[in-house]
């Protein structure tokens, strides 16, 4: 394995944290999906399962003062950036103790305390926000970096090119992270993206990288380097991460054979799963034993169950909150 040399005792902790975070995301999503299927969750939601190595590989290279902007498929980013299950499930259920007091829901979940500026229900809608966060950092002399998550579909939005141009002109500390999961809704990426996605960033003079989004260490390594370079004023950067979503576009998208085959899904799940891959590596490298891994998984499962139970019991916001927070004081 090419990465062996970088591993060792010192990294064990970081690796276990990455493993744990990936499992936390998968577990969160499985529970969220269950809530939907049992009609306990209002509305729809978009599962991140399968893409865990992207969010975790990136966010583990960031500190709490670094910012991210997230997407409609945002639970993974939120967990990876440090959010806790209770406040997340409360938000998904529209409860007062949710991160946004139930006002945002799955598509607008934000966690300011960990630098998550929020999911966004407008595809590409947060690209300006991320770039603006980076402009603020530069202008105010802060050394934080902002990562902008978005999908392959979002590369069709003109806003991306407008803000990449400015980020490049002004050398802003922002990393554009394109989660290419091969689809936007029910359409294959090649049908909606002409040419090359990384070349588009390069045309603006932005260094761009393609990376295996199912390999958490590869993602993390690259991100660490780019974050360090951003802090030195060498931003912006662009990453295209090859990945896959296991579920449908949203929880309600069940019959999807007309746009993607079961064989393809099976192949990704069985052969490229970011969690199994990493787990096998942890075990084979002696970083964790099977039973330790199982203990981690079990603990996370319990944590999620508790949080779901808590959220189901939690209060809805009082009706009087409906016209609060329209304006800040």
């Amino acid at each position, binding site marked *: 394995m090419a990465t062996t040399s970088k591993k060792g005792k010192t990294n064990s902790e970081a690796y276990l944290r990455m493993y744990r975070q990936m499992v936390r995301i998968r577990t969160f999503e499985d529970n969220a999906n269950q809530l939907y299927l049992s009609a306990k969750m209002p509305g729809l939601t978009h599962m991140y399962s399968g893409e865990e190595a992207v969010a975790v590989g990136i966010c583990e290279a960031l500190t709490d003062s670094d910012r991210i902007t997230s997407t409609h498929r945002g639970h993974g980013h939120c967990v990876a950036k440090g959010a806790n299950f209770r406040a997340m499930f409360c938000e998904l259920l529209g409860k007062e103790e949710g991160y946004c007091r139930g006002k945002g829901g799955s598509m607008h979940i934000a966690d300011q305390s960990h630098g998550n500026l929020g999911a966004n229900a407008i595809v590409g809608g947060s690209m300006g926000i991320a770039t603006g966060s980076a402009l603020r950092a530069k202008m105010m002399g802060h050394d934080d970096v902002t990562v902008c998550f978005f999908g392959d579909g979002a590369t069709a939005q003109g806003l991306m090119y407008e803000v990449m141009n400015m980020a490049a002109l002004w050398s802003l500390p922002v990393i554009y992270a394109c989660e290419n999961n091969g689809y936007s809704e029910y*359409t294959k990426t090649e049908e909606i993206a002409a040419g090359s996605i990384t070349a588009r960033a390069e045309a603006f003079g932005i260094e761009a990288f393609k990376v295996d989004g199912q390999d958490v260490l590869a993602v993390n390594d690259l991100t660490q380097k780019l974050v360090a370079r951003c802090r030195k004023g060498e931003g912006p950067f662009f990453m295209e991460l090859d990945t896959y979503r296991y579920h449908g576009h949203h929880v309600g998208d069940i019959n999807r054979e007309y746009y993607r085959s079961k064989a393809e899904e099976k192949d990704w799940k069985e052969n490229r799963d970011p969690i199994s891959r990493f787990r096998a590596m942890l075990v084979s490298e002696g970083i964790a034993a099977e039973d330790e891994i199982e203990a981690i998984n079990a603990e996370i499962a319990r944590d999620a169950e508790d949080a779901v139970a808590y959220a189901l019991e939690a209060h809805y916001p009082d009706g009087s909150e409906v016209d609060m927070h329209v304006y800040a004081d």
Partner: protein
Amino acid sequence: MREITLSQAVNEALAEEMRRDPTTFIIGEDVAEAGTPFKVLSGLVEEFGTARVIDTPIAEPGFMGIAVGAAMTGARPIVDLMFGDFIFLIMDQLCNQAAKTHYMSGGKLTVPLVLRTNLGATRRSAAQHSQSLQALVAHIPGLKVAMPSSAYEAKGLMKTAIRDNNPVVIFEDKLMYQDKAPVPEEEYLIPFGQANVKREGRDITLIGTSSMVQVAEKAAELLKADGIDAEVIDPRTIVPLDEATLLASVRKTSRAIVIDEGHQSYGVTAEIASRLNEKAFYHLDAPVLRMGAMDVPVPFSPALEDLTVPTPERVAANARKLCAGEMIDAA
């Protein structure tokens, strides 16, 4: 008469007009094989092929602009905008380009296109997928704005829109796609600017748009129990607006409530109420009341979202007060 869903009604209207006129085509995200997330367009790509049912990248300003150019040069595009909330993204192409081209060219260029989109909250879709933004486009001269309130209107207005030589925006209510209504097998069109008196009444006029027509009808049912005889009117298009029918009703009943699912302030209800006030002032026994959605972004939590839109109960309560001369605010 057979009953079909609003979704089927739209689908039929599109299919009929596309058969009739080979210059028509549909353009938007996931309109072809997927038939849109709401499945309204299912089957059309099979009949008309991908050259006329065109899947686009997620680039609303882009495909709106493309539609404008196609319309200016001889085609009749039908633009599918997945959520009404995305109108904000295409405002420039819609309002600076499509709406003004005919006028700016001194009548030489025309832009015959239809923008199909939707409105409506209470789907637990939160602030960026629940807006009812008809007031914004109604403010822009050059655009026509249709707001079907049932499958029957959805079909008839769509067919008229496609044949109209101007940019027309049609807002469908997301929550009504599965609602059935009687729709004739034979072809029919509903002319723009003709309101529909859904229910006659003597005591108060309830004017509702789109989703709020049902709310008004239910309120009228509730009011019957109080001996209040409400007239319910659906303007069907807010541009052009059938002032005459609305005024005739209000002159008869002397009282009116205007109900629309867009935000109340600077919204559709203000325009309609103002026209009634201006032109039926001396017939009014009480101020024309407006009921729009609350002036708040649409909250996700069901506990909050349901508070933001007019309901039959709240309309009925206000109607009772109006009829009893209890509008304290107006004193």
